[in-house]
């Protein structure tokens, strides 16, 4: 399963928006998937990502699924946010 983050917006900033994205994703995209399903999170097209938004969705996906890959993470705010999550939210991908 590939999750295209740009479908939630190009500017992914607030915590409530991240929580809403996770709930929508859980209802329509990842519902009933086994925990060992390969989940690819694709950041292509995302212009701004912050730790507040990402903590509500990326951290939770990583907690729920065992095989998670991050794709197209070149954007500077994506890089910086993932670094912050690894440091402060115990993200391990």
């Amino acid at each position, binding site marked *: 399963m590939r999750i295209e983050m740009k479908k939630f917006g190009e*500017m992914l*900033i*607030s915590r409530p928006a991240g929580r809403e994205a996770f709930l929508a994703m859980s209802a329509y995209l990842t519902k009933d998937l086994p925990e060992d399903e390969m989940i690819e999170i694709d950041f292509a097209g995302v212009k*701004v*990502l*912050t730790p507040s938004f990402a*903590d509500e969705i990326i951290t939770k996906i990583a907690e729920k699924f065992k095989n998670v890959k991050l794709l197209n993470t070149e954007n500077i705010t994506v890089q*910086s946010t993932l670094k912050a999550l690894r440091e402060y939210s115990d993200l391990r991908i």
Partner: protein
Amino acid sequence: MEKLGYDWIKSEAGRVDISSGYYCQTRDVFQARLEKMQNDLLADGRIKEDQVYIVSAIAGEIGNNSFDHNLGNWPDAPGVFFAYGFSDGKLKIVLADRGQGILKTLKSVKPELTDDARALDTAFNEKISGRAPENRGNGLKFVKANIKSAGLRLIFISGKAEAGLDEKMEIREAKEKLNGCLAILTV
């Protein structure tokens, strides 16, 4: 613009200018104006694209922090003041809120905090959540890291303390006490 921010945060309760175009009463209004700023800066071209995205992320974290930590607890006017513009070739972004301030927010999870300076130091340096048991409240560490890596400057005032951040961080006494938070980002 900085003076407008000061004036807004220092207005007497009940006399806050909520008709100002810089006032974002809700998070949705703030997000829309943040997107407008990003589009304006990309169209303007004076700041590199990567830098525009970093600046948007920093302003987004600071502005959203105001809503996250004051929801249901605003002392008077809810929301944030958000203004930006070029002055002497530098981009200035001013964000302010009339919320509880950093000390009161962090005191609920770290009761031993007794002054604004220590509260600011904690907010920018320690892994902590101002809304424990939720895992949140680490946005200012992200802000600090990006101020340093992108060569920016930030003044952040809350209560009687002022943090100055560039390559390093210094906390000093503010010239005057401000309830809530005031941030001035220079690019």
